[in-house]
């Protein structure tokens, strides 16, 4: 294994992540998006206050995440009984029903990965803001980028709506506080990932490393 001097070339070139075409890095005005000239992949964007805005959405999201996990999202009233569903009890009920693998899947996609995304993004962006990085910055950010698709709260939300319609005929379905927190959480997560430009983080990290050899 050896370290390489490749970045000298990287100062002014960018390789498309979808088709590997090497092209000159364009300079973008605020609000512009750079597309690959061959396959139309998004190369990077230049958004106003990208770091500040994503950090704000991440912190807002974390607050809604806590609320969403504290209360039930739906309760079912039938025959004088009330059955409540929280995010955690949904994972747990699959364990109890003899499907531990599905329980783990649900725990990862609706509880753990959304949390690591929020906490990890806050951790990284705080470092970017203070321009102080440590050895964990790059691995943590890479982990966040690769687990991005495994947080599935918006899909869970769709499933809640489907269940609502399915159960509506048989029993009284009561919306919980969490359902509202949920919608706001998904909104925060969407806005966060939309306003975050990974290039900004890598650029700052790299400039920082270049400053202190």
């Amino acid at each position, binding site marked *: *294994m050896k*370290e390489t001097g490749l970045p000298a070339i990287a100062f002014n070139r960018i390789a498309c*992540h979808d*088709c590997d075409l090497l092209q000159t890095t364009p300079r973008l005005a605020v609000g512009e998006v750079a597309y690959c000239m061959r396959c139309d992949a998004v190369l990077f964007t230049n958004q106003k206050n990208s770091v500040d805005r994503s950090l704000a959405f991440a912190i807002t999201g974390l607050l809604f995440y806590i609320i969403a996990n504290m209360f039930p999202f739906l309760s079912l009233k039938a025959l004088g*009984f009330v*059955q409540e569903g929280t995010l955690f009890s949904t994972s747990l009920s699959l364990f109890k029903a003899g499907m531990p693998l599905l329980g783990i899947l649900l725990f990862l996609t609706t509880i753990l990965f959304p949390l690591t995304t929020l906490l990890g993004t806050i951790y990284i962006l705080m470092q970017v803001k203070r321009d102080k990085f440590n050895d964990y910055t790059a*691995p943590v950010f890479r982990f966040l980028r690769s687990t991005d698709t495994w947080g599935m709260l918006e899909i869970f939300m769709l*499933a809640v709506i489907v269940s609502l319609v399915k159960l509506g005929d048989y029993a009284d379905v009561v919306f919980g506080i969490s359902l509202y927190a949920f919608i706001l959480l998904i909104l925060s997560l969407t806005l966060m990932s939309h306003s975050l430009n990974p290039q900004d983080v890598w650029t700052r990290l790299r400039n920082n490393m270049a400053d202190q050899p």
Partner: protein
Amino acid sequence: MSSLPTRQTTNDEINSRIASEINSDDDLICPCCKSIMHSRKPNSLNRTWALLITAMILYIPANVLPIMAVSFWGDGQPDTILSGVMQLLKAGLWPLALLIFVASIVIPVLKLIILILLLVSINTKAQWHPKDRTKLYRFTEFVGRWSMVDVFVIAILVTLVQFGNTASVSPDLGALSFAAVVILTMFAANSFDPRLIWDNLPEPELADESEQEDDSVIEMNGDRLVEK
């Protein structure tokens, strides 16, 4: 450390320099994030085939076995993916039936077909419509996770409908197989390298290379060049 390329450095020179670095036997370590660099995702075709074939095998129990059992007053009734859709249709909930049909049946099948087509097109060194094939790939990558919606519905029903002997829902093996199919195809899409589509094509000619100012900051990001 190689020197900074000058304005006169041509594309070819840079390409060959990168190629010589990448094709050396040593693993290259990214100086920025310290992970191993690959020019292509390692063993992409074999991995994707293996994941896809496993997914196709599991697709059978996912559709044949019941995904959940609904019982009213001790009267159990197993549901498969398709019978669940039919019930929604009978109940007149056709928007819901359509949603589940698309998410649970159309998308997984479409995803399997598209990925197999892409793999075959690379194995046969096909040259047709590379841009469209790349778009198909992006589509499968984007849409695949939504198939999970039925698994989540089952989870919610199992949690909420627990009224002892009166009414209860329990998950069944079909749900597990189906979740496995979705996860395996997500991994398959992830291990497929769209750059292979373009590797069979002749080198492109770049226009206006020299007109650009080259003093811009580093804009290349770590996770573009680098894979796991």
